[in-house]
């Protein structure tokens, strides 16, 4: 398991919020942890895949999309909190996120 510091957590959260603000053309200040990315921001799965690719590149992660897909069978992605926490786990566990 990879160590995740509060600084990295904050960096990941800010990166995700910046990404959705830009892609969904919405002011970042309007996005909260309770915001629903699909219903409130109009995001879609292709945006989500792009965010995964971006995060993998930034943190040099080796993650298969199918590992995330299997994790999503157990965990809903209804809020930004869900998304942010999933990316913390991606950072920490990589493909082993399936078993979390």
């Amino acid at each position: 398991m990879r160590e995740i510091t509060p600084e990295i957590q904050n960096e990941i959260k800010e990166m995700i919020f910046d990404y959705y603000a830009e892609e969904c053309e919405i002011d970042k200040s309007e996005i909260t942890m309770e915001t629903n990315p699909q219903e409130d921001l109009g995001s879609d799965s292709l945006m989500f895949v792009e965010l995964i690719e971006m995060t993998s590149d930034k943190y040099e992660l080796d993650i298969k999309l199918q590992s995330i897909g299997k994790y999503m069978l157990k965990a809903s992605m209804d809020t930004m909190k869900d998304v942010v926490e999933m990316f913390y786990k991606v950072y920490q566990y990589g493909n082993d996120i399936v078993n979390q």
Partner: protein
Amino acid sequence: MNNLKRAFLFNAIGSRPEKLLVKLPPELMDRYTHYFDVAFDRLGLNKDIEKNTGYDVKVAEWIVPLLTDRVVFEYYIEKGIIPDIGAGYSSGIVSISACFGSMRHEDAHDLMMSHRSMFRSLKEHGLKLDMGVIIGFSYDDLSELLNGHFTSDELMIGSGNSSFHVMICGKAEAVNKAIELALNEGAIKAFSMGTETAFHNPIIEAYSQEHMEVCRNIQYKDPKYPIISVFDHNIMTTAEEVKRENLLNITTPIRWDIALKKLEESGVKEFFDVSSNGAVHKFSRVSRKCKIYTLEDVFSGNI
């Protein structure tokens, strides 16, 4: 050909008309409205798309991306953005054929209209077909997953779009089963498109005779710019080659991912998405040294 630098990419049908139109700037909207009025008058379609009856609603919606592509294509050319080559994804083949001057725009519209008889024929024969999208699997990964579960008469991969985006097509029941299977095996998203047909599968050939006839009878010309085939990935420069591509189109699986790779290998660095809503940019992937520009990028001067 290894001195190519700029490629235009044409998308398929599938986007809702309102999603295609919302991104058109007002000056392009005026041109779109003109082309829309002329085309719908000629085809005898109701300009309030939902008020058309039967399969006219579906084909009327399919005419819209041809018109928005034409407007965006002309805008790019007027801005001095000239393609060295192009590629068309699915019905984007029809669109690029018209924009690159290989067929008249009216021929492209007639090709779309001819799909009505396919729907009627499929209904008469009680054949329920569909298409689906699987996000999170590459072509090879999905092939491996589906192998052994379906016969080629039931289901095929209709297109490998990128390393994470694949289209399937075939009997509706098989499409639904494949979607369930993919989701259980880790697809990020998988859904049926509700197309009532299975483009890019030979299963529809017997029901598409009118379309094939219209396609065969078009007077093709050499394209103004080369086009890469999304089937065999050869570079097409003649009327005969473009005709062949159009005849293959609805019954042959596509490898869009390979077409883009071949374009990169030929030297292309700049890709221009001709769809008004940037849809090609969303499902396509190119390497880091390349970029896919959208209408929004061009309009905002972000190139």
